[in-house]
């Protein structure tokens, strides 16, 4: 196991190094100069040059890469060109929106998907199964930004139960903060819940066909007992995979939803930073997200071993 951990960590580091190169090179070729963007139409050439020097943009790319990566390692993400604040602080602020939102949405999606998937699987072919499956088909097919628009229309504008968007900050109270994350979380969770329900169901159905389920029934377990005690944990591996993927998606892929609800999250930070050519922010946030994805994948792998003892020693 230790062996496996070391090996995985090495791979993880290699991935991050390659990713940092890819990110840096890709973003550095983006046309557009942050300094001239900041100074606008009337800026004089010497002003732009002065700003470039102030931002450190006049240094060579290689030097900038190493100072950036060196900073990342020591936790110093640099200073945002446009906001003039430490990138680490900005990211931390945004993280406090994106992370809770992702967890909230994931929780919702899991809370919907588990019972729905289990229920549908246990009543395979029945009316409930058919209805649940039809709903998940709809859920998978609905574009989430469109769904978000409809949610705002109904719950914020017509019913006035929620605010239409924005984020008051955690200082405004946990309830207020969670309330403002509710509609976005629902918009994000619905398609994810549909996917997860389908995976849960089909994974369970696969497991239900396994020989050991017959053994469990032969012991005298009822169908439901056998399902809960023997099938569920065995069906978890594909479900965990999907949950891992969804978490990564929710952390950064929520850009569109963050826009619809004007939430100050990571996705929108990237969007804005690219528009304003705040390259150092883009680079750092992308790296952070890559790190998150890689870490989540790593954790999911560990979770496999927790779920399935066969994987513990083998790797």
């Amino acid at each position: 196991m230790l062996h496996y951990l070391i090996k995985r960590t090495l791979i993880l580091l290699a991935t991050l190094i390659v990713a940092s190169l890819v990110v840096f090179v890709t973003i550095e070729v983006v046309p557009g100069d942050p300094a001239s963007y900041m100074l606008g139409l009337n800026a004089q050439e010497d002003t732009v040059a002065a700003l470039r020097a102030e931002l450190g943009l006049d240094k060579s790319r290689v030097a900038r890469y190493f100072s950036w990566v060196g900073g990342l390692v020591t936790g110093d993400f640099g200073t945002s060109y446009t906001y003039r604040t430490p990138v680490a602080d900005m990211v931390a602020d945004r993280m406090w929106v994106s992370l809770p939102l992702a967890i909230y949405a994931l929780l919702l999606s899991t809370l919907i998907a588990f019972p729905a998937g289990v229920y549908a699987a246990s009543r395979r072919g029945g009316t409930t199964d058919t209805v649940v499956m039809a709903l998940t088909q709809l859920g998978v097919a609905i574009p989430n930004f469109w769904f978000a628009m409809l949610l705002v229309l109904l719950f914020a504008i017509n019913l006035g139960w929620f605010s239409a968007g924005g984020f008051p900050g955690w200082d405004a109270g946990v309830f207020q903060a969670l309330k403002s994350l509710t509609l976005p979380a629902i918009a994000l969770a619905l398609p994810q819940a549909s996917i997860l329900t389908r995976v849960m169901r089909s994974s369970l159905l696969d497991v239900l066909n396994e020989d050991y389920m017959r053994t469990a029934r032969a012991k005298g377990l009822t169908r439901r007992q056998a399902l809960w005690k023997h099938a569920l944990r065995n069906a978890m591996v594909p479900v965990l995979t999907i949950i891992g993927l969804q978490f990564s998606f929710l952390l950064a892929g929520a850009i569109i939803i963050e826009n619809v609800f004007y939430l100050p999250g990571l996705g929108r930070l990237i969007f804005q930073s690219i528009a304003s050519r705040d390259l150092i922010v883009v680079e750092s946030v992308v790296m952070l997200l890559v790190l998150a994805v890689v870490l989540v994948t790593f954790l999911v792998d560990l979770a496999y071993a927790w779920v399935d003892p066969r994987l513990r020693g083998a790797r």
Partner: protein
Amino acid sequence: MKLRSLLPGAVLVLLFFSAALVSYLWTPFDVTLIDIKSRFQSSSAVHWLGTDHYGRDMLSMLMVGARTSIAVAIVAVGIGMLVGVPLGLAAAANRGRFLDEFIMRGNDLVFAFPALLIAIMITAVYGAGALNAIIAIGIFNIPVFARLSRGAALSLWKRDFILAARAAGKGASRISVEHILPNIMNLLIVQGTIQFSLGILAEAGLSFVGLGAQPPIPSWGRMLADSQTLIMTEPQLALYPGLAILLTVLGLNLLGDGLRDWLDPRLRRER
């Protein structure tokens, strides 16, 4: 029994495909004609689905939009397949060796970047447009197909008929093409349908944030974006493209499910 999802899926997909195809030859109105005076008309005998905020015929817009969505998604999935499947097959044929490791780590690397991020980065570098949307979605499909075909090929490589072919002296690439590929074709078709539907959603999402096809080419995502602010006064403008996306994706997913059941010999035997 299994036709339950195949048939409606096929009908929906056929509907939108034919709408897209017909739009090449004929649309009720020219979608490049802007006539502000006749905007926001409701459904009538002339404009079946009314007109949009520029006075363009909604039905025509939807038809041409179908073409954009379908073309982007198909080409993107095609790229994913054409690159991903050979990579997956090569990885499986060299399982455990350096090439396999290299391809799979490359896959992980691509997977580590959230999809929309890559799209945004690409469009930031090369500008927004249908072609870049295709590339962005295509890049994302590569590891999907590489993983799928590697996984399926790996299990096939253990089968006796592959052993038999190897015993007959056939090389790895010949076996991959002759024996592996035809046997993972079903999987690829099913996954292709699913990726296709995801591609349509992705294209809609990209167009929605303005990174997809550029005007004057109509696209469903942009129609939705344009209608966003009008949702209270002219809800039908947001309704039709949304429904078009929903139904197309739904149709493709149903078709994919149906195909899987239909192509799966195990399930077929049950019937």
